[in-house]
């Protein structure tokens, strides 16, 4: 358990008979950047709230940094950015960070130095004396990130950290996540922006209806998870149909031929087949499935609630 930042076993939450999380079993190692993915209503935020002690589980067990969830000592080493980043908006940015620092038990010079440092890191150095009510959505998200990092946490839980940010802000979040990983912190990331997750995470869990469908390392692509995009002219209907012997997912849009779920070993055969059928092949680009395609494959395309 010492090397585990988060460990849950059969964690459940129901609201009046309706199951929001039904048996979440998960293990996140120390120092990992872990993505938590799923459609709306999959139970991601509820799970995160259970880990933080905001919501009491109906059943199951969970440990955060080796301590039972809700433990005050564990929270001393945890940072959290809530999804909707609502804060006391009558405070200035500096006051806000000082308040949350004091709640972490920080005082004096250490707190002042850390607050100034985080204002700098999050690009808010010139806005510390402005009230939060005058902050833009992106600035609020940045100051929220800063308060989550005040205590140099061992575990950072970020709920949709890039939802209000422009591309520059997203890059900033990526940099912060990388810095935290280098520092040795574990980052648990709940995000809808799969491209962000793809860039920043080591492993991801796909959840749906409050259950983990699959956990895998990014880059760990399995057989049948590569695709090909080709530019082909003169492909006959018969030849197109013939491609189905390798994969059921064949699409031809103009000159663009897309073949999904192919085994890498069969690629030379496919090229030979296309050429033999009389088609002219101008490009043949194998690639692995994007996280989005993987998400749709594992979670399905029926969407969230």
């Amino acid at each position, binding site marked *: 358990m010492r090397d585990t930042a988060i460990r849950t076993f059969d964690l459940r939450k129901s609201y009046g008979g309706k199951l929001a999380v039904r048996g979440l079993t998960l293990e996140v190692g120390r120092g990992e950047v872990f993505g938590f993915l799923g459609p709306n209503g999959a139970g991601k935020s509820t799970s995160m709230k259970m880990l933080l002690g905001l919501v009491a589980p109906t059943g199951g067990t969970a440990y955060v940094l080796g301590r039972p969830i809700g433990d005050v000592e564990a*929270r001393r080493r945890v940072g959290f950015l809530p999804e909707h980043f609502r804060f006391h908006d009558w405070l200035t940015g500096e006051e806000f960070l000082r*308040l949350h620092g004091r*709640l972490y038990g920080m005082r004096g010079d250490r707190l002042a130095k850390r607050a100034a440092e985080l204002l700098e890191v999050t690009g808010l150095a010139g806005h510390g004396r402005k009230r939060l009510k005058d902050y833009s959505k992106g600035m609020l998200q940045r100051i929220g990130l800063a308060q989550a990092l005040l205590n140099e946490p061992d575990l950072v839980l970020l709920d949709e950290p890039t939802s209000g940010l422009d591309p520059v802000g997203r890059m900033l979040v990526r940099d912060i996540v990388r810095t935290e990983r280098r520092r040795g912190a574990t980052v648990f990331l709940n995000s809808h922006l799969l491209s962000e997750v793809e860039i920043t995470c080591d492993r991801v869990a796909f959840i749906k209806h409050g259950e983990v469908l699959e956990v895998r390392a990014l880059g760990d692509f399995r057989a049948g998870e590569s695709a090909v995009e080709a530019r082909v002219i003169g492909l006959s209907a018969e030849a197109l149909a013939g491609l189905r012997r390798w994969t059921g997912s064949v699409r031809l849009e103009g000159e663009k031929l897309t073949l999904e779920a192919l085994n890498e070993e069969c690629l030379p055969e496919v090229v030979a087949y296309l050429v033999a059928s009389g088609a002219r092949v101008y490009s043949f680009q194998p690639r692995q499935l994007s996280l989005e395609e993987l998400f749709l494959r594992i979670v399905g395309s029926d969407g969230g609630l």
Partner: protein
Amino acid sequence: MSAVRVIAALTCKEAVRRRVLQAAAGLGVAFLVLYAIGLHFVLGTIPAGVLRQPLLRREGLTVLTLMGLYAVNWLCMVMTILVSVDTIAGEVNSGVIQAVVTKPLRRWEVIAGKWAGFGAMLSGYIFFMAGGLLLLVRLLGGQTPPHVPQAIGLMWLESMLLLAVTFRAGASLSTLAAGVVVFGAHIFAFLGGWVEEFGSLAHSQTAVNIGILASVFMPSEVLWRRAAFGLQGPIVGAFGRGPFNVGSVPSDAMVVYAAAYMTAALALAIRRFSRRDL
């Protein structure tokens, strides 16, 4: 206890930043000025002969004092509910509380901190308003009613009781629903007090008992009536019958009950908030 201090300071700072404290102080000063002007002119219109008769003078000034304190008590009661009703329900509803309670503190510390912050501000307000009014009566009328410390203490207890009940309601309900419940309960107690008073006048024990039952349900108004009883003194109490006099005197046991009620309401607020999903 450190987190309690931080939350208490935050509560006071919020009241200042949102100009709640300034508005309440401004309203309070305006009220005291109005009362001073009113008292000055009322005293000026009373025939000199009447003013020279000690009993009539005492009765007149006592009624005017009770009238002023009655308004102060209502003002403090309304302030107590209005300023505190949103503090738990609003922060839960908006999600502001999430970033706070995920820090290394216990949830009871959040409630205790808010209680301490509001308690300190409301205590100051009650002492400022009641003390200011009594000072005006002293300066303009030359009279101080009896049992002033007890009366102010009882008004303070009423405010703290309402604060605890507001916290308890806010720990479960939305801001609006909590406000409706607490105001409703206090109005219920207020009406119960009048039923008890009329019952006492009409020598109807049943009506008196109904009034007492209402006070058992919500022992807020009963504290004002006990305070007013002490302030009116034995002579005015024996002869006077008006909207600000008290005929049916709430017992010591009822005051103790009110204090216990306040403690229980606060404990239940903490218990509910500690178990609530946020």
